[in-house]
């Protein structure tokens, strides 16, 4: 590991909140997105940013080294032999929403420093398919991985960490020869989102912001309207305030000063905090305490990085989104009604 690699890993970490949600595209993928012929028959060839990958036969040892691919792989009914750890504190790096699909399988967990790959360890797993769609794999890394096994990386039209969940699910479904299962899972997600939106007309047009205090800086991160979490929340009917949209612009996240915390005073504030204490410190801050988000109980708190709701929005996969929709629904209802008696309890 060279110093430069260490440095770039450290820089990646500094930009983490932005990178987790990087999208760079506002294009909504349509159901007819041409990601392949949908054939079950192998060999399968899939175009991607570094050319194409050919999977010669149905893969049996799938290794996921992007940050969220355990979900779409499990959704096809295949248990990976190893998955990369992103964050959270769950056995096999599989979060609660994918436990049913995981079943008794016990994939190895690849803990590698953020932005780095342990090629020897990956090779030792003897994979027959490596999946790295939610990642920033470089051409050099791709070359090394390809020497180990067929490797699926993201399509050229999407930026690093910016492949929409539907596209990710279909790409992986195609690579393992189970596109029908991927499509069925996608249908389930869309139906779940639609039913939550239908059941809750009060979500429609209500303003929502997803923010997180930048600890020790006196600022807040505000996640942009084109990030996966916000795309999901707006698909439930919520809208992103124009005043903040003007500040965030095309970025995935922007910082605003604590002096402008008033901009976070919207119908529903989803607030990711490190701990209960940190949440209490914010809501008791004289500047915040008088705002309606506090007096009317409009804050939906995500506490700590192991909060499964925070994880579900961060992963934004074909498995995590239905979980997010079902578990967030009552919290969003309690927040949007503006009744302090129904402040959001966690």
């Amino acid at each position, binding site marked *: 590991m060279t110093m430069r690699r260490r440095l770039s890993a450290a820089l990646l970490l500094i930009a983490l909140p932005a990178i987790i949600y990087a999208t760079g595209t506002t294009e909504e993928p349509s159901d007819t997105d041409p990601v392949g012929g949908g054939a079950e028959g192998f060999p399968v060839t899939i175009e991607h940013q570094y050319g194409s990958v050919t999977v010669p036969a149905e893969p049996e040892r799938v290794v996921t080294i992007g940050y969220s691919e355990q979900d779409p792989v499990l959704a096809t009914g295949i248990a990976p032999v190893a998955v990369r750890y992103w964050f959270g504190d769950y056995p096999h790096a599989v979060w609660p929403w994918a436990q049913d699909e995981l079943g008794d399988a016990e994939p190895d967990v690849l803990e590698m420093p953020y932005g780095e790959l342990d090629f020897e360890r990956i090779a030792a797993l003897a994979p027959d398919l490596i999946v790295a769609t939610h990642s920033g794999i470089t051409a050099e890394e791709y070359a090394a991985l390809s020497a180990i096994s067929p490797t699926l990386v993201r399509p050229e039209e999407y930026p690093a960490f910016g492949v929409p969940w539907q596209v990710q699910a279909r790409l992986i479904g195609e690579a393992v020869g189970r596109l029908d299962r991927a499509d069925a899972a996608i249908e389930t997600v869309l139906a779940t989102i639609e039913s939550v939106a239908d059941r809750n007309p009060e979500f429609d047009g209500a303003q929502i912001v997803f923010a997180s205090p930048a600890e020790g800086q006196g600022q807040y991160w505000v996640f942009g309207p084109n990030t996966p979490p916000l795309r999901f929340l707006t698909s439930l009917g919520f809208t992103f305030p124009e005043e903040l949209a003007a500040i965030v612009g095309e970025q995935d996240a922007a910082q605003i000063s604590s002096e402008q915390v008033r901009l976070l005073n919207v119908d529903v504030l989803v607030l990711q905090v490190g701990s209960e204490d940190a949440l209490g410190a914010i809501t008791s801050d*004289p500047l915040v305490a008088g705002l309606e988000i506090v007096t009317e109980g409009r804050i939906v708190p995500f506490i700590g990085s192991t909060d499964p709701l925070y994880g579900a929005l961060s992963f934004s996969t074909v498995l995590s989104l239905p979980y997010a929709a079902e578990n967030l629904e009552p919290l969003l209802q309690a927040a949007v009604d503006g009744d302090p008696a129904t402040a959001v309890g966690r």
Partner: protein
Amino acid sequence: MSRIPSFSSGGGRTVALLVLLALLAGTVVLSLRFGAAELSFGDVVRALFAYDESSYEQNVVRTLRLPRTLLGLAAGAALAVAGAAMQAVTRNPLASPAILGVNAGAAFGVVIAVSAFGLTRPMSYLWFSFIGGAAASLLVYVIGSQGSGGASPAKLALAGVIVASLLASWTTGILLFDQQSLDVVRFWLVGSLAGRSSGVLAVAAPFQAVAVVLLVSSSSQLNVISIGDERARSLGMNTGRVRGAVLAMVVVAAGATVAATGPIGFVGLAVPHIVRSITGPDYRAITVGSLLVGPIVLIGADVLGRLVLRPTELQVGVVTALIGAPFLIGLARRRGAISL
């Protein structure tokens, strides 16, 4: 050495003192008035003298701008005076408290607090930072005192560089493999006056005040020791004892400051130079001047950081680093200004 002739006279000093006090007052007013939120001078005045807790604007002044301005006053004064004293006792124009390993030790202390003890709030790791800074400095002093001649400036600087590098590599090593700790401390590692709770200042300020008062009041000894150990000894000074006492005060001032704000560069190094270029080499003038110019520079940089990227803020540690680099280059090219 350029020196404004009238400055040596008592009248010139009084005028200079009044000018600096006026500049400082102006900087404080700017700091209360300008920032991400739009508000008026009226809001500032009301927040200070007729505080209405239900006013958002007054709360911005009272709960955000006033604390960070007070922190800037304390930190700017402590860093600048500590820097001036360091330059005197080490006779090194590039000396700053960082040379004693204060910043590296404080950062290591914070990382240990977060990584090993799971602390997450600045208030809770304040003491780790303070103790880390003090312990690192003590280590530097002990190493620098070995061998013949005791703690010579050159040996101290060398020991400081070695200890700081060692601690920095340990800090980096821990953070590389502990992402959660990095998330907590990465913003502390860039010094800031914002987002540090007022409790932090309440703990740090007494230490800063005592150390600064002692350093300013020992400026006559700084004058003597800055002309060289042999001549100082010939004037009857126990140079080892004076140097040790001054360094201890520097560590208290800088250690308390870095614990409260995180590491902030440039101020401790550059402010004494700016002052010296006006006052000449008399440390009685340099320490008092640094006491006033330090907060002017630090608070001024903080106001700048609030305005350049509105509505986002640039941390003051970044601003001072950005100003500091060209300043240092200019300093190095003007040889006259470097000599003590």
